[in-house]
């Protein structure tokens, strides 16, 4: 018996329609008078689909999959792929437009941390409030109250109104309640995105315990590290369809490949360049260590920056020096720079084309998009410098520390770069 069966699931929404514009004063006046009637028709149509079929938007379509009891299924996809809609249907918040879902077992869903918290009430009252909203009875909460308070680690403030809590405290309290639900099927949306590192690790550990005890978990996240460490299998959603249903690593690979690369726009013939132009940088791409082209790469990975060079001159070039710099996309700030000559490497070029690779080990950049600029030097003269840059380096959240903890979720402001170290301690 499957714990979850989803057959041909679909969900449609209506798209908003644009207001009509009037040219004349009388026209606008007439329109204003008619507004209530038009509003009524518009609002009534929020829930009906009979007319104007062209403004219907399918958030999910033809989604089918099954989940075995005890399986941990990850759901990934870009924003707007339909992940949240799927979770909302599975948690019975909204009903499907077509298809059906069969759930075997008690379902608890955690789409938000601390649902139902009231700022004026004490931490204690809110534990009960939040717990009952998630489907627990008072008796169950009574039994687990100490455990919940202990897990949240804010026992001193249990009788303080929640409005005086810091946001971190609220999150801890909220997750603590949810962690002690005892459902057979647990549905979790991106809730680990908040809280500090210690608490995040605690949450991941708790979820691992839950899955270890034979509970079925559906887990949505943008953190590939968390998905990878928790799930055995993953679905990739794209525009409301399941386009991949495979092992976690295969699905994540497909997800990364979905990132559209925009580098072609940087190096087309008309782009502004400095330098003599005898040799030009004609292409830039990322590849993995096996040499396959990839659109994006996770933090901590090994990645090759590949530069393609094209020569327009007859002569050959001895001692070519190529360098690239990494810039923030927001303010163009220089993050780092590396020329091949720094490590004593120069290249020679005799034919018309050449490919130069630079392998980066354990990529120390947090999740985000970075601008790569590159410059070609020959005998201390600039041969080629595309002014806007050569392309983007897209970095996804990756397991930089090898622990499943994502760097970008640890601090409120994103760190510029990542380091890892070996920690030791001596007892005196």
């Amino acid at each position, binding site marked *: 018996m499957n714990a979850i069966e989803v057959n041909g699931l679909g969900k449609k929404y209506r798209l908003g329609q644009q207001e009509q514009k009037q040219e004349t004063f009388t026209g606008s006046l007439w329109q204003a008078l008619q507004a209530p009637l038009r509003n009524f028709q518009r*609002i009534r149509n*929020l*829930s009906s689909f009979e007319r104007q079929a062209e403004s219907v938007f399918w958030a999910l379509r033809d989604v089918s999959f099954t989940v075995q009891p005890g399986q941990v299924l990850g759901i990934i996809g870009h924003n707007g792929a339909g992940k949240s809609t799927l979770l909302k249907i*599975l948690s*019975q*918040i*909204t*009903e*499907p437009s077509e298809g059906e879902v069969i759930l075997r077992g008690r379902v608890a869903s955690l789409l938000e941390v601390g649902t139902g918290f009231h700022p004026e009430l004490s931490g204690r009252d809110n534990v009960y409030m939040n717990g*009952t909203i998630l489907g627990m009875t008072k008796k169950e909460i009574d039994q687990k109250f100490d455990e919940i308070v202990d897990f949240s680690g804010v026992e001193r403030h249990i009788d303080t109104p929640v409005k005086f809590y810091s946001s971190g405290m609220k999150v801890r309290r909220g997750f603590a309640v949810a962690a002690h639900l005892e459902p057979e099927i647990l549905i979790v949306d991106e809730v680990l995105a908040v809280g500090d590192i210690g608490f995040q690790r605690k949450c991941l550990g708790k979820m691992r315990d839950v899955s270890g005890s034979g509970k079925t978990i559906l887990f949505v996240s943008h953190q590939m590290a968390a998905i990878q460490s928790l799930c055995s299998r993953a679905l990739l959603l794209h525009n409301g369809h399941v386009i991949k249903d495979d092992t976690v690593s295969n699905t994540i690979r497909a997800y990364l490949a979905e990132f559209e690369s925009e580098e072609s726009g940087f190096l087309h013939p008309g782009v502004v360049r400095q330098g003599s132009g005898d040799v030009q940088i004609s292409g830039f791409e990322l590849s993995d260590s096996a040499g396959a082209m990839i659109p994006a790469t996770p933090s901590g990975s090994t990645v090759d920056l590949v530069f393609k060079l094209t020569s327009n001159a007859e002569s050959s070039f001895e001692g070519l020096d190529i360098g690239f710099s990494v810039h923030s996309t927001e303010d163009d700030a220089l993050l780092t720079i590396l020329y091949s000559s720094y490590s004593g490497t120069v290249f020679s070029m005799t034919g018309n084309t050449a490919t130069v690779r630079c392998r980066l080990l354990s990529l120390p950049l947090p999740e985000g998009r970075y601008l790569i600029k590159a410059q070609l030097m020959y005998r201390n003269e600039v041969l080629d410098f595309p002014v806007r840059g050569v392309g983007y380096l897209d970095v996804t959240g990756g397991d930089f520390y090898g622990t499943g903890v994502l760097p970008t979720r640890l601090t409120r402001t994103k760190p510029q770069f990542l380091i890892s170290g070996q920690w030791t301690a001596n007892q005196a």
Partner: protein
Amino acid sequence: MSAPAIILRRKKGWIGVNWGELVRYKDLLWFLTIRSIKAKYAQSVLGVSWAIIQPLFSTLVYTVVFGNLARIDSNGVPYFLFSLVALVPWTFFSNTLTESANSLVTNANLVTKVYFPRLVLPLSSVFSKGIDFLIGFILLVVVLAGYRQMPGLSLILLPWLLLVLLMTSLGTGMLLSALAVQYRDVKYGLVFLVQLLMYAAPVVYPTTNVPDSYQTMYALNPMVGVIEGFRSIFLHTMPFPFFWVGLGSGVSILLFLGGLFFFRKMERLFADVA
């Protein structure tokens, strides 16, 4: 698997009430009620006394305006008592109506984030206002004792009146709350509606002031039977108005069932349009 399978698919037409599920969520109902009471009186100096002040203040104002200045007939009892007896059930009705009509919109963050039987929301408004009603009722008893007014034997019919009052408030509340999710006009219009309804019920004047030929139509408003019933029990203004209360009971049952089924029918859309 201990729990039975849940099948989710698009529902059509009228949907019955899942009573078993409602019972399972009784603790949520309890805590929502507690929440709204505690939250309302948190950081307020007078606290629960506000539940007394509200009907008392209106009674004083009406006594001065309608009793002393406009000299409206009060069936031979002091106007203060006449309007207080009406205002205790009326305050419950109008507060429940307002609160339950807004209950889904104010709790939209819950409705769009977690599943629970949505009926819990209007129900909890009724319960939390029920506490206010109880406090108001105790005030009424104290005032009546002060005036040495003893209730008649018809006191045993009070639970009937309370039931009609409850069904009317809840029925209208459910109807309006389901509408309010989609049409925010309900929220703005409600202020006028409550005011209008008050003058359409015998709160500040006696039903005997309404022309005889219109009285049956007038009594289709269930609050007419409730208020005149209260007055008959506590102030002996007239024999117990069985006909009006009976008529009101019928209408209140229709309102309750209509509200309930409309709510259930609209429920599946709440999360999408809230």
